[in-house]
């Protein structure tokens, strides 16, 4: 893979460049925003609400912040050579980092609201080396950022980075996207993105503003004493109270729906997925309402595809397509979202481009052992029974009803078992899991890193085993697992998986 560098003179004396000067402003605003609060606090406490003193302090702070930011800026240089990018940074501790283009997993451009106004973009180079920031250039002008991205992209194809293929770029803009979401689709995605985050925020606000509320507002005992005294509530009929309770539930659901839609809108606004033709083939994704992100991931870095859905979503035919790669998505997600709300007919062409195939309809999935659900169900029932007996005898007889919880939990486990299946084809492994959060992982067999067969003490009597497959990507806490299959089948499966990928 390094033949190219031999044929081309290594561009060692490319100029060292600085970030865009406006990035000083950008950084300063960020830092000031955090410290402004301190000034406000000082204004009220130490400076006796004297506006002159506070103003002086604020001016000093602004000068200090801008000065330090400018100093850091002046000591931050980067160099783009033919094979790698070098970043020198640090005031006292100088750091000299070099990132070979070979190791870059994906390049993303991000524009927050202020950066958009200033025409800047932050370039993030992901190498997948565990730590969060591998190479971040915060910030370059938009054109410089795009040029850098194209340099990395074109590196492997042997294109010269100097002539930016402008016509090419324009031609691609006109081509229809692989997948795009209009506002109606975003609304649908938002409906399924039901969340109580807004409610939690409201709760937090209420907590912090609790000096406005009566002292015991969050104390249930306060309400127990107050409520019965209210003639108003006692006066209502039985049905009115039911209506009140329903209204409260409806309000909760509305809050959940609205917050889901708003969150989805902010993140996925004008979602667009394109195919990158020039240079390394790959995908390019643009999205965002306030913060625009523009990410390019090379096709060969994609380790596996995941299709997620839920019972209701599946009924209406909506699926969420994600790609696993070593680099994580922005905002702490470990998977790259490629189509947040799409029909299967829309997902197929996307998968077609990265040589991952969805299951043929006649492909027979193998179920896992029924012990998957009944063993857990028995354990849960025993625990619940112990809890119910303990609390029932010592606290209140009503607690005996705790045992009834075993039924829904058992049912849920049973449904989960029904939805945990796997299938193996010549080139891919399919693993399906979860009833409520349905996940179908499609893993090309040559992307498998390690295969582990493990048995817990509870597995030995039933000769069961769990197969865990190591992939270069995805969350470490939630690896790809086929749980509770017979030990000999696990061994056979592993043999097949390991053999298939030893062939180059």
């Amino acid at each position, binding site marked *: 893979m390094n033949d190219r560098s031999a044929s081309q003179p290594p561009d060692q004396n490319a100029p060292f460049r600085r970030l865009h000067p406006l990035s000083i402003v950008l950084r300063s605003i960020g830092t000031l925003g955090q410290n402004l609060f301190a000034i406000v606090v000082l204004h009220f406490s130490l400076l006796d609400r004297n506006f002159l003193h506070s103003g002086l302090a604020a001016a000093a702070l602004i000068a200090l912040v801008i000065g330090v930011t400018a100093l850091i800026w002046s000591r931050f240089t980067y160099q783009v050579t033919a094979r790698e990018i070098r970043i020198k940074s640090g005031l006292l501790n100088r750091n000299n980092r070099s990132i070979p283009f*070979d190791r870059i997993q994906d390049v993303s451009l991000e524009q927050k609201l202020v950066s958009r106004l200033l025409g800047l973009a932050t370039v993030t180079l992901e190498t997948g080396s565990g730590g969060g920031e591998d190479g971040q250039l915060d910030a370059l002008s938009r054109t410089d950022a795009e040029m850098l991205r194209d340099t990395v992209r074109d590196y492997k194809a042997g294109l010269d980075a100097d002539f930016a293929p402008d016509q090419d770029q324009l031609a691609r803009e006109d081509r229809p996207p692989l997948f795009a979401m209009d506002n109606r689709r975003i609304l649908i995605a938002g409906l399924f993105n039901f969340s109580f985050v807004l409610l939690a925020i409201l709760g937090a606000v209420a907590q912090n503003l609790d000096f406005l509320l009566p002292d015991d507002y969050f104390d249930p005992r306060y309400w127990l004493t107050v409520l019965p005294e209210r003639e108003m509530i006692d006066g209502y009929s039985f049905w009115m109270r039911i209506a009140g309770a329903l209204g409260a539930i409806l309000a909760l659901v509305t809050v959940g729906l609205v917050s889901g839609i708003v969150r989805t809108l902010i993140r996925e606004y004008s979602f667009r997925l394109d195919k990158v033709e020039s240079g390394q083939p790959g995908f390019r994704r643009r999205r965002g309402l306030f913060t625009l992100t523009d990410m390019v991931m090379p096709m060969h870095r994609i380790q596996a595809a995941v299709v997620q859905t839920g019972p209701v979503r599946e009924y209406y035919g909506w699926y969420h397509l994600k790609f696993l790669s*070593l680099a994580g998505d922005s905002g702490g997600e470990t998977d790259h979202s490629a189509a947040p709300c799409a029909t299967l007919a829309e997902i197929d062409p996307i998968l077609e481009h990265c040589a991952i195939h969805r299951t043929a309809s006649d492909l027979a999935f193998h179920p896992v052992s029924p012990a998957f659900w009944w063993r857990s169900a028995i354990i849960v029932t025993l625990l619940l029974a112990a809890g119910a007996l303990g609390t029932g005898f010592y606290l209140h007889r009503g607690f005996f009803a705790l045992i009834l919880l075993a039924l829904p939990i058992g049912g849920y486990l049973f449904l989960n078992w029904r939805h945990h299946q796997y299938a193996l084809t010549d080139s891919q492994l399919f693993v399906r899991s979860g009833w409520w959060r349905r996940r179908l992982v499609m893993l090309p067999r040559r992307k498998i*890193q*390690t*295969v582990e*067969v493990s048995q817990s003490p509870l597995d030995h009597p039933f000769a069961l085993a769990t197969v*865990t497959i190591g992939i*270069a990507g995805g969350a470490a806490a939630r690896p790809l697992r086929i749980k509770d299959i017979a030990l000999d089948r696990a061994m056979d499966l592993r043999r097949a998986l390991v053999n298939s990928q*030893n062939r180059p």
Partner: protein
Amino acid sequence: MVIRSLFLLALGLAAEIALLVQLGTSPGVILVPVALLALVQVLVLPGRIYRRWGYDMGDEQLRVLRGFLWRTDTIVPFNRIQHIDVAQGPLQRMFGLSTLIVHTAGTHNSIVTLPGLATADAEAMRETIKGHIRQDMI
């Protein structure tokens, strides 16, 4: 294991004294079972666990077996290994032993360790694996 047993014994002793002072239970009500458990941990389990420890260098892959109650059996194909360490702790150095550590790119099982190899063996294995590592498998 010895260290874990000592820790368990200390915990048991603390609980024993606490109960003795607070409730006036008869001596040994906790300490005896705990001591038995510790004895099992020291005498029985290490042998079992040692017997389950195993490895197999195939032509193309390394297989590592471990664990007595919680058993795992891992296969790492050589061409998926990113880099290899041979490490030695002070106790291991006394007995001329080494630990072979292979790193893969996977997020699960990214580090597979194989302790208690004779140093010469570990180094030979490292050389074998090194020959199989190819560039840029991910």
